[in-house]
């Protein structure tokens, strides 16, 4: 039976700690939200796969498998697409890894391939929250010195899939 959604559940924000034990429940929640919104099991499975791989990457690489750090996942329907923002506060990536399949013998390195295959688009943003001090001295030349300190930052991976 297919039920029409008269009320949307938009957006949904979920927060987990950086533990691998939290990934599966969150992945299942995302799968259910996508299934509810689109009625497509394959769509929901694809999104879950991408989200799980992204969360695994955050825990392993941004937080070096240390538990107790925050990961915030926002799920949102935007017209005919689902958008998921995954935010962490750990080590930032300097570039998005290429979505290449490694050699068969390699036991890791398939995550970005899966993300790339299961989403229509994705991008990564590092947001830095800075403190900027600018000191002016009267010397007749309108010169100043400036000090910029990054107080905190967040990394946001956005996954998009159309239905």
């Amino acid at each position: 039976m297919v039920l029409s959604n008269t009320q949307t559940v938009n957006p949904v924000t979920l927060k987990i700690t950086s533990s691998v034990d939290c990934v599966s429940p969150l992945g299942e929640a995302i799968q259910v939200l996508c299934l509810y919104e689109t009625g497509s099991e394959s769509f929901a499975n694809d999104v879950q796969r991408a989200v799980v791989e992204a969360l695994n990457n955050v825990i392993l690489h941004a937080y070096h498998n240390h538990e107790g750090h925050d990961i915030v996942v926002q799920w949102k329907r935007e017209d005919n697409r689902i958008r998921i923002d995954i935010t962490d506060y750990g080590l930032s990536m300097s570039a998005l890894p290429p979505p290449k399949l490694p050699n068969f013998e390699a036991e890791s390195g398939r995550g970005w391939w899966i993300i790339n295959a299961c989403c229509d688009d994705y991008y990564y943003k590092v947001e830095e929250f800075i403190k900027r001090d600018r000191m002016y001295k009267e010397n007749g030349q309108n010169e100043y010195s400036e000090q910029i300190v990054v107080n905190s930052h967040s990394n946001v991976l956005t996954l998009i899939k159309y239905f």
Partner: protein
Amino acid sequence: MILNEKKHGDIDVVELTGRFAMANFSDVRDRLKSIIEEGEGKLVIDMEKVTFIDSSACAVLISAYKGMQLREGRLVIVTSSIVQSLIELTRLHTIFDISPSQAAALLTFDES
């Protein structure tokens, strides 16, 4: 994730049930390693009841495959539709020996 082990003659059968992902991959990998080391070189990993699989689970399957190759043994895997689709997505189906059911997997050892 539930891991159930049994023997069919000299064939080790490992049945996995539930989600096979990073949260349990090291437990499954270690258990499979022991089974491979102690076994007769014939192994079936039955994932017909696996409801989700990620890339870390793929790593465990590759590790088991390589372990069996080192012993000149043979690994046959049984997949659910969700497992099969990820294995195809990562092109591991071109390497793995895949059977549609545990019974069919066991039969392949009789043929070889």
